Every structure is written in C-alpha cells, then in structure tokens.
C-alpha cells in the first residue's frame, strides 16, 4: 500500500506550480531573510536568497518543502545548450536517515510509507538535519523544531493526491501506488532510451528505495543529488566496534600501568625490608 511520487524531470517546464501549491496547501510562510554584510555593498543583504530571477530560494528549507532547480548546460563552443529542470523534495526514504537519528520518536513512518515530523514531539535537537543524506530536513528558528515535506499527510490519508502532483500541469510529478509508478517510470525510461537519449532512474536502490524517485537526463550530481548516498546509520556497527576496541585498549593501558608497576613496587619494597 506504499504511496509515493514519480518525478519525470524530462517533462518539467520549470513553472513552479508545485512549489506554490505546496506553500498554499501546507500554509508555509516565506523563508525568513537572514541579513548579512557583503563587502562593497553599503546595505545589508539577505544571504539566504540568491537574488536570481528564476530561483531565489536556492535550496529546500523549513518553509520551502519543494524546490525547482534550474540547470543551464552550454557546451564549450556555445552551440549546443539545454535547460534542465527538476522539482525536488523529501524522498521519503525506505531506510530514512532522519527517522533513524531521531531520539524522541518525533519522526515516524505512517501506514502509507511516508515519513513525517510530529511537531508536538520534536525537541529541536537538530540531529536529524545532518543525518539526511539529501540535505532535506531543516530547522526552523521560528518553531524551534524540524520541518520537511510530509507527502501531504493529511491529503493522502483522505484519498487525495499530493498538492504538488495535483498542480503539476505537465504530469512531471505523479502521485500514486509505488508499484504503478515504477511501471510508468520503466516504460518512460525505455521510451527515452529507444530514442537514444541518456536517461536514468534515481531512487530504486538508494536508501532501500526512495518513495519519491526521479527520472534524470544526466548524472544525479547535475541535479544536486548525491551520486552514492549512504544511510549514515549503516556505519554505526563499525564505529561502535572500533570505539569499544579503543576502550578496551585504554583499559589495558590502565591495567598495565596501574598493576604492573604496583607489583614492581611491591617487589622493591619486599627487597628493602
């Protein structure tokens, strides 16, 4: 019964309807500006905005749960060029780094497979933030808690699709049963490959499968996604083992130094007496 989304970036037009729909449905305010000084500029500048016409927010954040990335590719001779768009959000990983890290059970998975932050439980420890391999989940100074896309938890539990998928005019974002979406993705991939285009699915293997997965026309890096994302908790066993071994080593050093010398001293003393 797992639900998810398939984002076919090859038919995205960069209209940002999804970004607007997300803000509206989830009642998200504008990202608060963080002003700072920039050399040579006499007035304070909002550092967290790009100031670019197409993409002012630049990244996902606590109030931007969707972000459309604009990628201009121009070859060296400036003859060939293409413009790629990709609408990004939380991937609702099957093995979610953020969920694994949370010490309070604020982050949970619902029966539909989506990962949500329970605002009334989150303590704002911020551990989930570096634990997401995709840099998605973000901290809000305003609420003192972590925020991210919920896969429209309220809508999907009432039989509706996500707001972004609903708003998308080209069908680039599709919401549905994971199995159906995969069929659609495979068909589209075969079609593109048949035309000789370079295309790939991103999200079948990563983190045991991303519930929100993508069709890319270039390497994931180009779209700002990690090439080999690792669920960070998979290092836990090795790290713990090495740390335990070190503790044993320190214990052994203590044993040698605290006991042997003592024995040596005992002997010396018995010699003297």
């Amino acid at each position: 019964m797992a639900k998810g989304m398939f984002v076919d970036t090859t038919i995205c037009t960069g209209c940002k309807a999804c970004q607007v729909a997300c803000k509206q449905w989830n009642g998200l305010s504008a990202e608060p500006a963080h002003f700072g000084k920039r050399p040579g500029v006499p007035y304070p500048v909002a550092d967290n905005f790009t100031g670019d016409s197409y993409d002012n927010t630049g990244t996902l954040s606590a109030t931007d749960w969707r972000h459309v990335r604009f990628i201009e590719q121009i070859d060296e001779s400036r003859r060939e060029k293409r413009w790629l768009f990709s609408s990004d959000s939380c991937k609702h990983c099957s093995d979610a780094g953020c969920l694994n890290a949370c010490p309070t059970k604020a982050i949970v998975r619902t029966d539909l497979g989506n990962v949500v932050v329970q605002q009334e439980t989150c303590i704002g420890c911020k551990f989930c933030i570096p634990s997401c391999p995709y840099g998605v989940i973000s901290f809000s100074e305003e609420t003192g808690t972590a925020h991210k896309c919920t896969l429209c938890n309220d809508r999907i539990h009432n039989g509706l699709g996500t707001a972004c998928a609903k708003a998308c005019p080209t069908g680039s974002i599709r919401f549905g049963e994971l199995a159906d979406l995969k069929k659609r993705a495979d068909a589209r991939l075969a079609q593109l490959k048949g035309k000789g285009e370079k295309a790939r699915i991103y999200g079948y293997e990563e983190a045991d499968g991303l519930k929100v997965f993508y069709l890319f026309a270039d390497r994931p890096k180009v779209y700002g996604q990690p090439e080999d994302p690792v669920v960070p908790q998979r290092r836990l066993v090795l790290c713990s083992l090495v740390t335990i071994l070190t503790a044993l080593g320190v214990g052994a050093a203590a044993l040698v130094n605290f006991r042997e010398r003592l024995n040596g001293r005992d002997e010396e003393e018995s010699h003297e007496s």
Partner: protein
Amino acid sequence: MSPEIIQPPEWAWYYIAVYFFVAGTSAGAYFIGAMEELFGSGREREVSRAACYIAFPLLILVPIPLIADLGRPERFWHLFIYNQGGYPYLNLVSPMSVGSWVLLIFSVCSLLSFLDNLVADRVISFPLFSRYYNRIPRRLYAVLGSLAGFFIAGYTGVLLNVTASPFWAATSPFMGALFIVSGASTGAAAISLYLIWRRRNSGGEVERLEAFDRVVMVSELVLIALLLVLAGRTALPLMTPPFVAMFWLGTVALGIAAPLWFKYRSRRHPFGDAPVLAHYLCILAGGLLLRISLLQAGQL
C-alpha cells in the same frame, strides 16, 4: 557524494563542543579512578578519590548546555519519555537517544561514588545507613560506572561519525576512538590538577597515572593522524586560519605534543611547580580546542 547539499545542524560550539569536553573529562576521570580502584592495590586511594570528586561536579554542569542548545528546551524530557504515548523511549540506532539514557546511568554511578568518598572522608555522614556501610556494592557500580564512562566519552564521536556531513562521515570510524583517548588524557590532567590543589601530587600513584597518560597521549597523536588521512579533502577547512590556530597550534602543538615532550623530559629533569601546572592546563585547553575544531569543521 555531493557534499554541498548536506545541511549542517548548526550546533552552537559553546554548548555542544563544551559539552563534549566536560562530559569527556568527567567520564575519563571516572574510569581512570574506577580502574585504579579495581586494578590498584587499594593502599593508595588518592587518584580514585580525586576522580570521584571531579567526575560528579563536572557532570552536574552537563545538562545545562545540552538543554540550552535544543530548539524547544522545555521538551527535553521527550528524550526519555515518548510524549504521545507516555512510555519510555529508546532508539538503539540513535547515539543521541542511547547517550541520553547512559548519561542517566553514569550520573547515578558518579553520584554514588561521590557520596561514598564524602562519607569516607567524614565530610558528611548518614547515621541511619552506617550499619550497611560495608555492604555497599562499590565494585559493582565502579564497574558499571566505568563502562558508562567509556560510553559517555566515546559516543559523542560515534554520533558525529554516523551523520552525512562529509567531514564527520569521512573520519568514520575513528572519531569515537579519538574522543575516548582524549577524554582519558583530559581526565588524567584534571585528576592531577586536583591533586596539586590538595597538595597530594606525589607518590607512586601519581607516577603510574603519568605513565598511563603518556601512552594515551601518544595514541591520541596517532589517531589524529589517522583521522586526517581518512578525511582527505574533507579536512581542508582545518587548513584555514581559525582552525590552524585552534587545531594545529592549540590542540596538536600546545595541547598534546608540547605536554608530551614535557612529560618525557621531566622524568629525568624535574621541572618546577609552575611548568607542571601549566602543562596540565595546556592538556585541558587542547582537549577543548580539539572538540571545537572537529565540531566546527563538520558544520561549515
């Protein structure tokens, strides 16, 4: 990996790195004291006593920075009780969750040791319990406490290693090891400073502590080298001005290498009191700067 997309948690160094340092020193002091108690002859108890007098008072400070750094400090108890179910919650794959619980165990053990020493030194007394005094399972909580102490000193490093932040991820799996070793060394320095303060810094026990500390500090240098090799390009921030001062000058040169040289040197040519005192302070400062550097280098 495309590192640029991983978000830093923006943990404030003056809370979190200071917590790493204080908890590491407290835990280091405690396990040194407990092992002296367990392995030593029991004739000299200055080191283990000093350890108990250091571990608990330092530990009381610990919740302050930890809670202050939360976005919602008033909800800190959610770390122990799931607020929507009302039952205790432990997440075994989250070092932060396990660490919170072990911190609780460690506090109890170090409180018991602290009280025990106060009673032994006749600072306080519990007339009602005096009959049971000899039946207190001291060895039991010394063992439990030193296990918890090792955990507290090391888990903060593991916690950093199991994130996606490029520097912290690349230094896996040795950050926990480095933090344990550093905790042992700052713990030993804290004990020595306490003994100087109480004018009890002489005798075989202190010599043994010094010998232990030399081994520990050499391994600390080895681990730092290993960490940097593993980190590769992700360690580049450590080459920028503030980190050169903090990490290379503060931690490596003045905090470890110089005190280590001093320790070997003073075996043959004893120095005066002031340099001895200063070199312990250097070790402590080095330990703090180590935590600040490694925390901040992962949060740029």
